[in-house]
């Protein structure tokens, strides 16, 4: 007979579903456990793994051994989700999910990534099918809360400033009605108003402070040159460096 998860276990499984993966230090950052969070997070993840609710996979395959946890098929079913969320993540998704989970759960303040269902119910006027949901509510330095979309900078081989252009492209794709199916145009109009009212931002996660500085300087240059500038805030997630360039196995 399969042991059913406790209420606290369910919260942990929902956390893993929300971020697609977790590690002890990420789970500990959520505040689900009080006091000795790291130790309790480690124990809970190991136990849920033994009980078949979580599976584990290599975070840096072929490099330093470190496991991450993702939902098992049984856990996906228990949460009423599709089995696809119980698959180990491919390289790009793994790096991106790790960076997002680290930023949201290990940073100050804690940020809760929205699930698709949460986004649909909170921003019903903005949602239409086929969009990536990587949003959270960002409280700016001025106290204003904005809808933020997370982009992870994985330092590809293309021109790095295209990251800024890709944000502009994202906005055009979702606000230019000529690019949008007729039935979704009311959502696009609503999103355009949202952007105009400064209620939307991109949060770019990058590995190095040098890159943060470069992106901010390029944004300043474009602003001064009166070029279109998408609303972007940049954060450094140092752990992202090793996710992109894992250290060799010792």
């Amino acid at each position: 007979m399969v042991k059913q998860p406790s209420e606290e276990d369910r919260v942990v499984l929902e956390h893993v579903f929300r971020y697609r993966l977790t590690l002890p230090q990420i789970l500990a950052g959520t505040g689900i456990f009080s006091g000795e969070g790291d130790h309790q997070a480690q124990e809970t993840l190991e136990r849920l793994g033994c009980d078949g609710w979580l599976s584990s996979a290599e975070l840096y395959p072929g490099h330093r051994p470190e496991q991450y946890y993702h939902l098992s098929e049984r856990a996906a079913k228990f949460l009423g989700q599709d089995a696809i969320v119980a698959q180990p993540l491919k390289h790009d998704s793994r790096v991106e999910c790790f960076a997002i989970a680290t930023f949201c759960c290990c940073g100050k303040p804690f940020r809760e990534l929205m699930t698709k269902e949460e986004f649909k119910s909170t921003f019903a006027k903005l949602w239409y099918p086929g969009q990536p949901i990587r949003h959270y509510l960002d409280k700016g330095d001025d106290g204003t809360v904005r809808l933020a979309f997370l982009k992870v900078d994985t330092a590809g081989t293309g021109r790095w400033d295209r990251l800024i252009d890709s944000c502009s492209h994202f906005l055009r794709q979702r606000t230019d009605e000529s690019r949008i199916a007729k039935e979704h145009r009311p959502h696009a109009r609503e999103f355009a108003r949202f952007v105009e009212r400064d209620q939307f931002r991109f949060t770019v996660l990058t590995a190095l402070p040098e890159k943060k500085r470069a992106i901010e300087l390029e944004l300043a240059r474009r602003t001064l040159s009166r070029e279109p500038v998408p609303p972007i805030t940049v954060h450094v997630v140092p752990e992202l460096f090793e996710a992109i360039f894992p250290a060799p196995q010792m």
Partner: protein
Amino acid sequence: MLELTRPLYAWNVGDRPPSDQRLQSIAAASRARWNLPHRPVEVFTVTKRTVSLFGAFVDARRIKQCEATHDLHFTEVYLRYRHQSPKLAANWLGEAAFPKLGLEVLHMKDPDAFVISRQGKAQRIIEFAGAYEADHLQAFHEHCAGGAAAHLSARGWTDSDNPFARLYSTAGTSYELW
């Protein structure tokens, strides 16, 4: 490789500008050093991915031999700073850490490196004067001695929130030519 032990010339804010004669002698010294025998040296350069990782405002193309010679010697200047003035070296920002202002602002130059204060102001400009002519040295002096701030101001870039305007002082910025 040349052994670079000290700058060919250093100018500090408040100093008199270099005379024509002095500029001629610096130019002659910068050219004369390349008359010594030379040999090929293997160098390592970054890939496009590293450029992307750091957000460098340069591309990772195959550089010309004269550019490689320049960059290699400028690296030597940086290593000398690291060895002799680690605090200044910690605030060193190379040309690749800035957008090319020469493409944005008329008559603007893009020096090889800056030593930057916490407030984002250039405390010192460092340039490797490969084999510069006297008129090039004169133009570089004018750039550092208030010209850069004037060009930015003419473009309307004077706001203290503007990171490029903040870089240069209207009174000029000290510089070293290596």
